[in-house]
């Protein structure tokens, strides 16, 4: 079986940067600081850096696995674990990606419902957005990468944070390291979910021209994500008292409430709508990766799987109602994501090492 795609489907190595970055930087960042601050308080920013470092190690592992096998995870599963066990693992990944897409879509719709239009029906917005997703994913991998690149525009929103600078209290950060290492590590675990997304490398690997050269871009993507999250968490800590932050659901959107222009009084409308930049690339990549896995496993056309998956996501999104369900769903997914990154990827890495060693002795 040929390992790499035809040249006309591939993208340049540097495009791994927007790809990995937009897959990581999703809407979860809006409330990423709530749980870790319960554990690490004003030292959470240290945990953000630690978590970023952990993900650099994970990216390194991912590239070691992929460079050695020169194919994507779907084939690696079959090669390592045989047809049935490998197929089962692929199936778990498909379900995970579909759940991830559903969560992101539901998070965005919830923001629109709470901040903009309280009487908007969930299914209505879901169907409109999923049509957009169909249009993008049906366009192929290169179109999705284009959307990821376009979504980098969201970093312009950082300028709006300048309006809050007058309310910063720098003594909120001291005394530094008032929490034990154990508490910091617990916070790292809570922070991991917004970083999750590097697993997409397993699926896009065969679509990269000279994939070995793309590793530095993946590291750069993770670095930019870490810096962005550091800004998010640091600004939250400087702006809000710990007790105040615990009462917020979307502290990041609350920050837009400080912005005041003569021509736009409620900037959070812009901020809330702009979350679509954080959501659409992830949904597209998730749907694309899961439908591609089905294509390879069952030798069906990707376009026939796509509508079925979109309908599944649509049903899942319509079934999640209200804050409590969304929160429970997010907790579940963040657990799965955490173990996938910090348990499953190292496991595959070890299996790969063992196979190489065993192959050499034989």
């Amino acid at each position, binding site marked *: 079986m040929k390992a790499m795609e035809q040249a006309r489907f591939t993208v340049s190595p540097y495009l791994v940067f927007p790809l990995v970055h937009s897959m990581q930087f999703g809407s979860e960042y809006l409330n990423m600081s709530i749980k870790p601050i319960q554990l690490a308080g004003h030292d959470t920013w240290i945990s953000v850096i630690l978590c970023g470092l952990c993900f650099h190690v994970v990216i390194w592992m991912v590239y070691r696995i992929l460079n050695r096998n020169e194919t994507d995870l779907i084939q690696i599963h079959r090669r390592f674990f045989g047809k049935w066990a490998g197929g089962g693992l692929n199936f778990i990944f498909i379900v995970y990606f579909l759940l991830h897409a559903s969560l992101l879509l539901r998070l965005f719709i919830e923001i629109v419902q*709470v*901040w903009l*239009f*309280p*009487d*908007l029906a969930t299914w*209505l917005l879901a169907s*409109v957005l999923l*049509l957009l997703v*169909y*249009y993008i994913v049906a366009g192929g991998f290169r179109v999705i990468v284009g959307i990821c690149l376009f979504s980098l525009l969201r970093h312009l929103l950082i300028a709006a944070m300048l309006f809050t600078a007058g*309310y910063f*209290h720098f*003594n*909120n950060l*001291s*005394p530094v390291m*008032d929490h034990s290492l154990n508490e910091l590590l617990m916070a790292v675990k809570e922070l991991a979910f917004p970083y999750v997304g590097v697993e997409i490398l397993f699926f896009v690997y065969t679509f990269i021209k000279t994939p070995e050269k793309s590793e530095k871009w993946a590291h750069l993507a993770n670095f930019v994500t870490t810096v962005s999250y550091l800004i998010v968490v640091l600004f939250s800590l400087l702006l*809000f*008292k*710990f*007790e*105040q932050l615990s*009462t917020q659901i979307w502290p990041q959107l*609350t920050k837009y*409430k*400080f912005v*005041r222009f003569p021509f736009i*009084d*409620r900037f*959070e409308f812009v901020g809330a709508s702009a979350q679509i930049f954080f959501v659409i690339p992830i949904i597209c990549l998730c749907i694309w990766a899961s439908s591609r896995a089905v294509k390879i496993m069952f030798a069906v056309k990707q*376009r026939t799987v796509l*509508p079925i998956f979109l309908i599944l996501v649509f049903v899942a999104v319509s079934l999640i109602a209200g804050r409590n369900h969304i929160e429970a769903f997010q907790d579940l997914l963040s657990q799965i994501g955490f173990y996938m990154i910090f348990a499953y990827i190292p496991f595959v890495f070890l299996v790969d090492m063992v196979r190489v060693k065993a192959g050499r002795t034989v």
Partner: protein
Amino acid sequence: MSRIFLMLAVSCLLLTGCANQQILDRITLFIVCAFDEAQNDQIEITLATTRFQTGKPGSISNQLLSKVGHTSVGIIELMNTRMDKPLNAGKLSVVLIGTDLAAKGVRNELDMVLRDAQASRRMYLAVVDGNAKEVLRKNFSSDEEKGLYLYNLLDMNERNKLVPSQNLHEFGYAYLGKGMDPYLPMLQIKDDHIYIAGLALFKDDKYVAKLNEKQMRVMKLLKENVKHGALETKLNNGTYVAVEVIGSKVRFRIEKDTEGSNVSLNLRLKARIVDSKAVTLTRQMIKKIETSFEKDLIDSGTELIEKFQKEGIDPLGLGDFVRSKTRNWNEEEWKKEYSSLNVKIKVKMDIEETGITK
């Protein structure tokens, strides 16, 4: 497949009118709203809304709405029964609170405005000496909308004058944060004139004490760095001198000596003389003026802190400062310590310029 897709995409265009629209001409905005206590644990909300007259740009008329109820939403619903255009809180910028309600606690009202997705975090809050409703009844702004007038009054004084700044965000910050207590400007009304009479100090969410206008100026200098505002002092020979503050910096420090730790507040002021009552400004004279100011500020500052300690409130945020310098800070212990805490005030004033005459 593509035909179905096209059909669905086109049908999306028909959905654009489905969301609830809020067009400016079809809603009633209000900038100011007043909360008062009513009987049986109810609250009274008063809104001053504007009505624009068609065909006459710039001409507005104020309309006053007042209702009693248990929750704000219920009251707004009741008010809507008297309106031709629904009320919308999106532009709310000033919230006035009556003294009675403030003394009982503003927790519920605070929760309401902080929960609202449309409320600005920069909204100004103020306590009214007496009944908040009475302020909105008075005709204090002849040609301007009442809400806008009040907003500008508070905004101008908190930005450029010696009224300590406080908005919704900072109030919530000081109320929820440990080791500090909030405060709000106190408005008073006299013969159709409204003015900031001082500061209302809160313990948690309850109004407990009041500062007069002179104490308020000192409080602002001890609380934050300022760039504007005037101060005056009485010299030994009985004449008054006024200076304009062009920059002040306040630093909190913990000093440890044999009796334990104490906090010192170091205030450095830069100023220029604006009114010297024809005193000849020799170098010795300026030195004298500086010492006179320093003594004044130290005396009134110390008096202020004794007042805070007696009431058990901490509007300066000394507790929060000590927290940031101590590991494993404990709020309970701090509260016990606070009443007997030794707070020193040190002031250094520099008069840099004397206007365009000597």
